[in-house]
């Protein structure tokens, strides 16, 4: 510091920054905020400055008091960066319970790591994260960061509440933007939370949230993303990795995506075009052609995720996929589209959230959304959807990863929000047909055909590819009601044409029936017992939902041992309610035979917190009756 002017400036600067320091003793936290809390957010200040279409600056300043390891694990003390995003500042300060500073962690002490994990081969995106060992709880951590990016297509969502077990003293959002970029916002789920809008002008938006109590996680709840308040933000004039964009509606957005991101990516070598034409042959029907093309892609390609530069958004060229035989969801979708183009079948890239928890693209908020891409083919008055990353899925099957949700279909003439395939509860079937025999020592042997369709197909068809030891493990868990289970034969039939998976199984088990004083006791329902897994929850607060319903039907013939008489037979049973219908029936036949019939139908639906216990009791009745036992007495 040679220049005196500099020195003065430096002095001034340090003065200001030390004046900003404040202390956060834990004694000032109110009791209500401590309840159920693993951590309390003392202050969370987010400042977003949009200087232009190509400049987005985000400052995060938060102070959190952490009570335990869970609270610590939930901290988001990290920032991501890549070629167009730089971390200008990142630091943290640790205070003890009394609010005294005990450690300062500077940028160089943050760990630097690639975001690529098991699922991604390579990624340009990296992040700096805090690597700190708490020496005692509670303690308080203050975090400061500043991130600058040229990409304005994604403005971070404001979610004051981001996880369970965290309460909030104060949280602020302040956004400043030029009036001419078409800033827009959407407020979601504010009801019941103490959030106030402070400013809302054509250049500034700000909110504050205060005294929000810690939320408790409960089974069968909607995702916290649907329960907690948030503000989504976006620009009509945005920028993404070197490309400007303008969109006020989905039509414009789709056009921009087609022209700026997708165009020029579907060229194919002539050789490949003629190959696929020959492969399709004389087939005229577009859907049948698509089926052949899908088969071709499944055999040729594999899923490899590589995220480099705009590759994070722009698909790899179809020619490259053709040559390399691999790509990510965008690349494989686009490649399939290119092949379909070559045989004159129109198809459209489709952006969505891929997750077994159904998540919509927010239809009334035009902006970049989604985490996955599939292909959409017009089929009469509806659409057929192709999951191009799978080498196994049947043509047009959506399973549980992309079904029943709003997605964005990108047509050259513009984007469009469409609902994907809804699998009807009554179509999600499992049909069991078989028989079993109990000998006089209680030993069990039986054979069974299990046919699964609809969304049940996706959970079953994966068994086909398990290694023998994993297969054994799967069935021993599936039938954990049968001790000493031995698998004698397993044969699968995967009918992809009709999307139907059949398991043909022979099993045996010793001591299935328990012997007590000349009696042989065993549960009648050996093959499809509903385990009682719905938890008791003390004072449930959240609504609950069943995302997918199903219908199971069983018909099992039972051969009883000779030399016994039936002392007790469970009564026929029927249970009907808003959650579904359950029915069992036992029919006595000649020659020591019984026929057991069972059907279980569950509705999908959304219910209030009060109905949860009702549901638990409904399922408890089902599982109790599934476990109903027969008693045989020795003659």
């Amino acid at each position, binding site marked *: 510091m040679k220049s005196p002017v500099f020195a003065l400036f430096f002095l001034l600067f340090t003065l200001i920054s030390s004046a900003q320091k404040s202390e956060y003793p834990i004694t000032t936290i109110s009791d209500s905020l401590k309840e159920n809390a693993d951590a309390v957010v003392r202050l969370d200040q987010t400042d977003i400055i949009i200087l232009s279409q190509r400049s987005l600056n985000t400052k995060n300043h938060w102070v959190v008091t952490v009570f335990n390891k869970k609270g610590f694990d939930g901290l988001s003390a990290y920032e991501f960066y890549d070629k167009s995003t730089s971390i200008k500042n990142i630091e943290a300060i640790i205070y003890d319970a009394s609010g005294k500073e005990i450690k300062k962690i500077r940028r160089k002490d943050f760990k630097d790591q690639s975001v690529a994990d098991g699922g991604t*081969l390579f990624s340009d995106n990296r992040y700096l994260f805090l690597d700190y*060992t708490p020496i005692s709880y509670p303690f308080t951590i203050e975090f400061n960061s500043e991130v600058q990016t040229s990409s304005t297509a994604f403005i971070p969502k404001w979610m004051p509440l981001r996880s369970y077990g965290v309460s909030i003293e104060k949280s602020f959002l302040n956004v400043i933007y030029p009036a001419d970029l078409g800033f827009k916002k959407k407020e979601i789920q504010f009801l019941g939370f103490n959030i106030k809008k402070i400013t809302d002008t054509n250049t500034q938006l700000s909110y504050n949230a205060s005294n929000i109590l810690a939320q408790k996680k409960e089974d069968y709840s909607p995702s916290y993303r649907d329960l907690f308040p948030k503000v989504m933000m976006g620009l009509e004039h945005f920028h993404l990795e070197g490309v400007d964009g303008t969109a006020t509606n989905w039509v414009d957005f789709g056009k921009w995506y087609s022209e700026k991101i997708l165009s020029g990516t579907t060229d194919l070598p002539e050789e490949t075009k003629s190959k696929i034409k020959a492969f399709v042959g004389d087939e005229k029907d577009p859907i049948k052609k698509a089926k052949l093309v899908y088969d071709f892609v499944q055999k040729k390609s594999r899923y490899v995720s590589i995220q480099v530069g705009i590759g994070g958004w722009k698909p790899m060229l179809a020619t490259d996929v053709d040559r390399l035989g691999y790509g990510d969801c965008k690349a494989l979708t686009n490649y399939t589209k290119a092949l379909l183009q070559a045989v004159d079948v129109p198809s459209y890239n489709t952006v969505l959230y891929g997750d077994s928890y159904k998540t919509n693209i927010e239809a009334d908020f035009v902006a970049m959304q989604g985490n996955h891409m599939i292909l959409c083919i017009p089929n009469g008055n509806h659409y057929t959807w192709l999951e191009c990353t799978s080498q196994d899925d049947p043509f047009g099957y959506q399973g549980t990863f992309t079904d029943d949700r709003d997605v964005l279909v990108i047509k050259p003439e513009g984007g469009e929000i469409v609902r994907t395939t809804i699998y009807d509860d009554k179509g999600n079937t499992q049909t069991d047909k078989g028989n079993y025999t109990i000998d006089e020592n209680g030993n069990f042997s039986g054979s069974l055909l299990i046919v699964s369709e609809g969304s049940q197909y996706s959970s079953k068809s994966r068994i086909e590819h398990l290694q023998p*030891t994993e297969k054994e493990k799967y069935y021993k868990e599936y039938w954990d009601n049968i*001790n000493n289970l031995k698998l004698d034969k397993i044969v699968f039939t995967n009918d992809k044409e009709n999307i139907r998976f059949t398991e043909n199984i022979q099993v045996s088990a010793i001591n299935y029936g328990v012997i*007590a*004083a000349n009696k042989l*006791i065993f549960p009648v329902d050996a093959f499809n017992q509903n385990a009682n897994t719905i938890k008791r929850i003390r004072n449930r607060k959240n609504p609950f939902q069943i995302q997918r319903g199903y219908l199971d039907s069983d018909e099992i013939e039972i051969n009883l041992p000779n030399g016994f008489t039936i002392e*007790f037979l469970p009564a026929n049973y029927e249970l009907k309610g808003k959650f579904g219908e359950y029915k069992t029936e036992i029919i006595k036949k000649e020659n020591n035979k019984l026929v057991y019939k069972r059907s279980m139908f569950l509705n999908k639906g959304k219910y209030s917190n009060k109905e949860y216990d009702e549901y638990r009791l409904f399922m408890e009745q089902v599982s109790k009756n599934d476990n109903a036992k027969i008693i045989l007495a020795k003659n």
Partner: protein
Amino acid sequence: MKLIKPFCISILLLLISNVNAQEFKLGKVSIAELQEKAHPKDTAAAAAILYKKGSSRIEYNQNDGFVTVTDVETRIKIYKKEGYSWVTHKVWYYNNSNISEKVSFSDAITYNLVDGKIEKTKLKSEGIFDEVRNKFSGQKKITMPNVKEGSIVEFKYTIRSPARMIREWDFQTSIPVNYSEFVTFVPEYYTFNSRQKGYVFPKMTVEKNNKSIIISSKERVNSGGFTATRTEFSQDKFDYIETKTTYVGENFPAMKDEAFVNNIDNYTSSIQHELSMVKFPNEPLKPFSTDWNSVVKTIYDYETFGPELNRTGYFEDDLKVILANKNSDEEKIMTILNHVKSSVKWNGYYGYDCDNGVRKSYKEKSGNIGDINLMLTAMLRYAGLTANPVLVSTRSNGIPLFPNRTAFNYVIAAVETPNGNILLDATDKFSTPNILPLRTLNWQGRLIRKDGTSEDVDLMPRKPSGDNVFINYTIDNEGKVTGKTRRQCTDYNAMITRDNISGLKEEEYLEKLENENNKIEISEYSRTNEKEILLPIVETYSFTGNNLCEQIGGKIYINPMLFFTNEKNPFKQEVREYPVDFGFPFADKYNITIQIPEGFSVESLPAPAVMTMEDNLGTFKYNIAVSGNSLQLVVAHQINEAIVGTDKYEMLKEYYKAMIAKETEKIVLKRI
């Protein structure tokens, strides 16, 4: 356990045999290999390594002196889509100011059979990725192009390392390996220890060759052998003998993971090398690790070990205060252990030596395993106790079979007493003297004394940990059960219970307890000795349950042990490949008193039973008696060994089967 005898130290001439195997060369992919639809010996295999050949050669280089060049080439067959992950390969390398290694891939080609002809697709730069892993290392990755079911991929890579380090070579992996060969070329100046492990052993041959190097200029430097330091010109020729050691193995089956296996790596066939000695002409011999004593000495001499252990100044004032009036050894040990536990927290990093150094860790209140337990040892010594560090290999690190420095990754403290060693670990809140965190329970550790001598220390617990349960319950005539439970856990069971409790709020814990125990409703819950970690932990509570009995045809059927019944046999596999590891021996005891409802009498009771396993491996006792309206049940289940060999698996499985059959037998009550 078959494995835990150290293999003999000699690396020379174990076996000499002619391996007249096929010649494996890159590029010689046959149509027959491409046509193969399934692995002939393992039809379920998704992929197989048709061959893998590696060599590590320590060779002279004008600029860097002796360096290590490792070449690996392999051919992999893909049978099914599930095997696609095998066409992506990663090689990590050191990349920092101390050591910078280079990795390069070459000859990477995918082979497919197209219309009866072999089609080749070469890997280009677009499929090669270089990634920074952390401050110390990077990683190169490749993913092969144009892969389909039936494809064969081949690739080769070279690692150039300035250090004399030979990486571990795995002969076996999770898919079948048809042929695996590893060769080392080592100049006479260097001696390596090698250790083989696993169930399948490759054949070894040794050959000696004369080599020479010409060095232009320069002088030898003490550490790395021949290194350039001066600019004076001279030329020397050195003759030396190079030892070529070849390990060849064929037909390694795929490794499969099983339940209750401590670490599958312990059973994988592999070979490790460690530099044990350097001896250049006209220079003194420099030992690294030839036997346990020199391993220990080398470790002791590390700046981050011995000197750290001898540092004292930083804690003396504090210890003087807390040790005042502490006279017995027990008191001193507990005081110091508690002091270290409360003043320094484990940062999650392993290592037998210090990361931060003891002084800094003490000041900043956090450190790695070495920082904390060496500090603990130093404090115990300061208090006048005979305390020493014990080197340990954690369960996840595998079993140390052979004297070498890298076999260990952890350290604990031992206090020698007339009644044997007291083992201590201050990195776990709930660990107490001789009750160590489960991660350290791995066969034997190596105790190092001040005078440089060392000895094996048995880490495996011998004393069974107790789980004593008293239940007193009443059944009403509608089958509702109401009762009280008192559960007392000792030793390892106490440590585990405290661990389970510690992270949870009471309401959460009770919700979990209720749901795990047949949805009983719990009230009047209390704990005794939660913080008194030397004493057994006791939980008591009252409960009611509607799902604990069954009423069938007017009779009541009940599992007398209620939610403590063992219902599932954990040993489901038909055949066991590896030993069963319980972690520690244990004794579960249940004392149960049952009041039956008015108007009912006992129709049938399970018969008393006793089972014992051979070699005192375990005992099960079941005793039941009626007196009036009350039943008295005593059940004991005890396993005396932490590790059970595969030869006893069948017996163990049968024992569990019979125990479960007994425990699930029901009491039947009928109306009078």
